């Protein structure tokens, strides 16, 4: 990805994005997201973390405990405000108020506000300066992220995140569709989300102390269901096969049409979608990772409930979605939970047993997606789990760290999720006549892509590429939306070009998908990742029999 190449003058160095050659810098690693930043010594942690979406409830005055962070490595000095708000024990454990600290050492910090931190994007990007301010919106099924940008400097002036207010009508997007189809459900969901984004923008304006008339442009990205609901389009075509809506294109609004209190000339664009299950968040991801301009075969995967995959180069892009299910988010896992305090986020093998890392320095309460992937990888390593997914010793549960257990059916859920993604990647590569080794790079988009341990993902056969080819790309949807802010009116053509270049592949309709999916459900056996090893049959025996009609 590019770096800051703005033509606009910047008065202050962008925290986290620049190295000042003649000033000492420190490295700061944010857990659990593994985000790494570099900043000049003395930079206020408040500025650094604010750009990451960490919120400061009292405005950074040291009057509350909302911004407290857990320092895992490095020294951070303590002042009176912190002594007042934090107990001696907490201070000894490394808890600090971020708003009261400056960067004086290389640090590893665990954020308490995980959810906020996982969502935003701080990737440096190249842009051409424009007048005015812009707002980028990543409209997710579960979460919303909004960033206010100064289009002259590319600086993020404010960040607001929230849970999607439609969530009360169903957690996943299919249940929203179900709610929207009859009667006026669609209208209700449309009004809700428009109102919520409108009020987030008001909060951004307020937080940044800017006149709202300066907002020129708002870019919204989201999956196809979110696109349809926000734009007030009929979601009925998204409820059934072939899941191909006819209105995927760019939708443009003026703020007042949406009921937003922006009095200026603000234009609101919802970027176009690529297919029924591949939305403008993925188009934005292509934009962010520059997939459409690369010579080498490159991939982008969003490891979510509806795992989206794009593979291609500047000649041609293929995209698909696979129903991976919610296992990566810890749902339908017996002790699954989101990546928040109390979740086992990492499992490592040490001396023939497992060691778990728990978020927030509290007793373990459950298992989040990254912990699940790690735990199964560890189970395979220790021989507790066989390549078929079965527990070697039988029994229903394996205790990771009391009271948290991994059950046999948890392993099965993960097999479904990873099988779907791995099969999707394999099939798109096959369409290029390529194999895993022909892929130059694979970008993992989204929160889970940041969390997941790549070695574990490889061990379970989710990502069948060498670690050096796999890279976490962060919130590419938000980054893509930001890039779109710098492409004014006449350049909407670039989205049209990406859409033209991209072919949506309906995997479900492909006869061989189910077979590939079942093959990929099996865990790799000591690197020899084959169906034969798992079934105890020789390749000859398998090929002589007719292929399973599954």
């Amino acid at each position, binding site marked *: 990805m590019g770096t800051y190449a703005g033509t606009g003058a910047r008065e202050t160095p962008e925290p986290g994005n620049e190295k000042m050659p003649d000033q000492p810098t420190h490295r700061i690693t944010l857990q659990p997201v593994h985000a790494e930043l570099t900043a000049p010594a003395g930079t206020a942690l408040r500025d650094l973390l604010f750009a990451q979406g960490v919120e400061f409830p009292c405005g950074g005055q040291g009057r509350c405990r909302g911004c407290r962070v857990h320092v895992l490595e490095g020294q951070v000095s303590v002042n009176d405000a912190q002594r007042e708000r934090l107990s001696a024990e907490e201070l000894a454990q490394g808890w600090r108020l971020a708003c009261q600290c400056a960067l004086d050492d290389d640090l590893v910090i665990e954020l308490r506000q995980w959810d906020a931190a996982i969502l935003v994007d701080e990737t440096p990007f190249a842009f051409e300066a424009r007048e005015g301010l812009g707002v980028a919106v990543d409209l997710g099924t579960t979460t919303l992220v909004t960033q206010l940008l100064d289009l002259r400097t590319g600086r993020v002036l404010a960040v607001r995140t929230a849970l999607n207010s439609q969530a009360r009508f169903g957690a996943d997007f299919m249940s929203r569709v179900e709610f929207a189809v009859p009667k006026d459900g669609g209208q209700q969901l449309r009004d809700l989300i428009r109102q919520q984004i409108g009020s987030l923008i008001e909060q951004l304006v307020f937080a940044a102390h800017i006149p709202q008339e300066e907002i020129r442009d708002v870019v919204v990205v989201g999956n196809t269901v979110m696109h349809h609901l926000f734009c007030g389009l009929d979601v009925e075509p998204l*409820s059934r096969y072939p899941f191909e809506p006819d209105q995927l294109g760019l939708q443009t609004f003026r703020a007042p049409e949406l009921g937003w209190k922006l009095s200026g000339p603000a234009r609101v664009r919802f970027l176009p979608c690529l297919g029924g299950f591949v939305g403008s968040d993925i188009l934005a991801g292509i934009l962010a990772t520059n997939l459409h301009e690369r010579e080498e075969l490159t991939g982008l995967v969003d490891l979510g409930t509806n795992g989206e995959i794009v593979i291609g180069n500047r000649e041609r892009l293929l995209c698909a979605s696979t129903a991976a299910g919610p296992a990566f988010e810890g749902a339908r896992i017996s002790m699954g939970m989101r990546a928040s305090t109390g979740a086992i986020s990492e499992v490592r093998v040490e001396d023939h047993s497992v060691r778990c890392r728990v978020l927030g320095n509290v007793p373990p309460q459950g298992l989040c997606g990254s912990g699940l992937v790690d735990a199964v990888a560890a189970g395979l390593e220790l021989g507790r789990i066989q390549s078929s997914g079965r527990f070697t010793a039988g029994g229903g549960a394996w205790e990771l760290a009391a009271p948290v257990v991994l059950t046999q059916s948890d392993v099965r859920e993960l097999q479904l999720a990873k099988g779907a993604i791995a099969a999707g990647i394999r099939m798109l590569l096959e369409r290029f006549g390529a194999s895993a080794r022909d892929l130059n790079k694979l970008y993992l988009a989204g929160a889970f892509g940041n969390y997941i341990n790549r070695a574990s993902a490889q061990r379970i056969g989710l990502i069948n590429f060498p670690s050096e080819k796999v890279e976490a790309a962060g919130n590419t949807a938000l980054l893509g939306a930001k890039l779109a802010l710098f492409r004014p009116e006449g350049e909407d053509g670039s989205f049209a070009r990406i859409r033209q270049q991209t072919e949506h592949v309906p995997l479900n309709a492909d006869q061989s998908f189910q077979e590939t999916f079942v093959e990929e459900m099996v865990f790799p056996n000591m690197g020899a990742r084959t169906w034969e090893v798992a079934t105890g049959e020789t390749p000859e025996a398998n090929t002589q029999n007719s292929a399973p009609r599954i």
Partner: protein
Amino acid sequence: MTPFEELQQAIIDGKAFVSKALTERMLKDGVRPGEFFPKAIIPAMDEVGRRMRECEFFIPEVLIAARAARASSDILRPLLVGAEAMSSAGTVVCCTVKGDLHDIGKNIVAMMLESAGFKIVDLGVDVNAEKIVNAVREHQANLVALSALLTTTMVNMKSVVEALTAAGLRDNVKIMVGGAPVTDAWAHSIGADGYGKDAPSAVELARQLATA
């Protein structure tokens, strides 16, 4: 181990090649074709069903076991003639309903029903009610098994029940439904005869309904 036990084991282990070879050898040794189903294939698949229900087996193992069962039954079916002909447990028209493309679950149920002695007419995925009505008529089916994996397509099960009623075939067939969003209550509400929560239950249910 008796040859029947050996064959059962080969099926459970998913060894299609072994199951085929064993079947051929046993036939050569004078085992009557009609003996295979009650003494090896049906008990083996019942065991596969039990293991699946206990999470010991998962989709891949069930599918390769079913394939191994088929390697044996494919040899046997043409040999089952006259009095030796297997008294078929019944004919099942199965499919995934209109608007839905998911078929792994439906295929597993179909394979297990087949191993349990049912004749299967698999119409595939995204199948409308009219096609089902025609198939029931043409094959004189006594069971209809419907699958749906989406809350938005599950409603189409209801249209199938209605279409069978409208065609005057409702009294000839029992209708069973299944799939992730489907429940027992749903089955009742649309006037179906039963709900199978997983493949082994579907086999049990089919046996019950076929003899009811």
